[in-house]
């Protein structure tokens, strides 16, 4: 990519904003976002990440985007995984090892059922209201 001018940057921002919005849960695309800060990786986020990708591949699921992100702040329950599936609440799962990762693919993504005992909330979300 060549160096940007001011207009290029603005155009790029608009474009990217649209593509990011497309991944909105109301649209078709589903997303699985794995927290991969040092904290997450130390707790096994890489294994979880790979397990989810492998399981999606094995089941032939293509409409799910698996992404990485930084620390979500939920250090007490690393690795953390955020799952965005259309027409379902956005959910953050905590303590997701490889096995739970596969379970998320089966139950949440395929079965549209939340996985018991692993749901977290971003801290304080409800309290600060």
């Amino acid at each position, binding site marked *: *990519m*060549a*160096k*940007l*001018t*001011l207009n290029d*940057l*603005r155009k*790029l*921002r608009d474009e*990217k*904003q649209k*593509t*990011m919005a497309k991944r909105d849960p109301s649209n078709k695309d589903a997303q699985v976002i794995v*927290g991969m*800060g*040092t*904290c997450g*990786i130390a707790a096994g986020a890489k294994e979880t990440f790979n397990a989810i990708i492998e399981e999606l591949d094995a089941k032939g699921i293509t409409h799910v985007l698996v*992404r*990485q*992100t*930084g*620390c*979500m*702040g*939920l*250090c*007490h*329950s690393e690795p*953390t995984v*955020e799952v965005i599936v259309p*027409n*379902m*609440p956005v959910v953050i799962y*905590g*303590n997701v090892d490889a096995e739970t990762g596969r379970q998320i693919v089966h139950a949440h993504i395929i*079965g*549209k*059922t*939340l*996985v*018991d*005992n*692993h*749901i*977290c*909330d*971003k*801290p*304080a*979300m*409800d*309290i*600060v*209201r």
Partner: protein
Amino acid sequence: MGYKQYILVCGGTACESNQGIALFNALKNAVVSNGLVNDVQVVRTGCLGFCEKGPIVKVLPQDTFYVEVKPEDAETIIKEHIVKGRVVSRLLYDKKQSKINVGIEGIDFYQKQFRIVLRNCGVIDPDKIDEYIARDGYKALEKVLFTMKPQDVIDEVSKSGLRGRGGAGFPTGKKWSFAAAQPAGQKYMVCNADEGDPGAYMDRSTLEGDPHSVLEAMIIAGYAIGADKGFIYIRAEYPLAIQRLETAIAQSREYGLLGKDILGSGFSFEIEIRLGAGAFVCGEETALLASIEGNRGMPNPRPPFPAVKGLWGRPTVINNVETLANIPVILTKGGLWFSKIGTATSKGTKVFALTGKINNSGLIEVPMGTTLREIIFDIGGGIRNGKAFKAAQTGGPSGGMIPPQFLDIPIDYENLGKIGSIMGSGGLIVMDEDDCIPNIAKFYLDFTVDESCGKCAPCRIGGRKLLNYLEKICNGDGTSADIENMQEISEAMARASLCGLGQTASNPVKSSLRYFMDEYKEHIDEKKCRAGKCKNLLRYTIDTAKCVGCTACARVCPASAIAGERKQPHVIDKTKCIKCGQCFEVCKFHAVNRA
């Protein structure tokens, strides 16, 4: 396929012990009895925080948050909320109690945790510049380069009231204006990413989760003060943060957001990463500069301040990671917007790394003025295993221990200073009744003595003397004269040390002597450690009335100090006992006494 609604039941230990399981089952039964099995899913979650109001139930997708829900309420929730769509108002958390004041932005604005610094952490992929750009990244840079003069930028930052997040809280706008006021010529912008407090990881997480926000801020700062070169000083122990920074720098260079003639504005700026070897003192700005120059990391007296005479003798601004991460937001939303968040003297938010004896350890960002109680009990979910809160340490080894009576003071720079602690960089370590205060003070002194560079006597000798006294007290050899000596040395260190490390190293001692004198006195006068941490002060005995002779203690004792016949009371041989405490842990009959 799919459910219409989801009922989340908190499965945290606090809620579970409070009839949470019965509630979960009652809700499930109510779903069945009302014929809603295909419409509603009931799930257990991890701790939702806010344990003092547990058990907590949350209904999605409406996000209704019910508190103190009893199993008998299950039927009502299903019949009213799920079937009729009416909120059960008596179970709602009273929203009027919200203590967080963020000014005029309206309720919607603070529905979620208040994230400025961490706005992109856990949201974007840090390795993708496009995602940062899509979240208004480099918009502030755009605004600054094309619509603002350097002085305008400084004025905006000054107006925001932003103060340094590295510890001392110096106004950022003022720092920038000092450097800007120096005659034109080579100037430098330095990002201090040498995070070294035990238990602190805010800066690491920010750099790992959102490296571009720091780069953008450095370019803006460079423009404001007239610097064309920036350094990020980061410790080599943060390999992932370094890797993500390197990726980010390469990407922004490729896009022309770093380098010559940025976005065709004519302004040029370069950033270089310098790795530190992990010396705590290198977080002190003059020592940090010495280290970048290739010298031994030791502080120099100020003035001259780095803003006047810094890196290679040139004017240099040094800002901490968190300070910088605020900058792009301040410039896009305006200094006035920022100045409405927080307290009278401390604006904006603060990121804390919440650790220690807390249920939900984690990285949190709260508006200045939030109380410790809100942080520890609401957000942090309270003390682990239902123990009693004893103290919280802010500012790591440079801070003080905050006792329970100050749980309700609003946290800002001034208030923390008044009670003998400091804001510090944001480590927040929670201690419970099982922590021994003199022992914790000893831990911190051990750290600062280890990390003292040795250049000035007050820190080098004073720290060692303090540590010696603390060791003596914890070993049971303390005298009341030791306390007086410690107080005197603490004062001398605070006044006479060359840099922040020595000046603040005695804070854990000073604050603990101020608030926990009774524990020191117990150690000295009664040779007693109430928390059971100081080995030399412990005596283990077996209560013959309670002992059933199960032999568990005798089997676990590594020193073979416990004797006794099966089904007969056992006895500990004090001459052999090494006070490891294993018998105390293993006894199911509470027959082992520790005193």
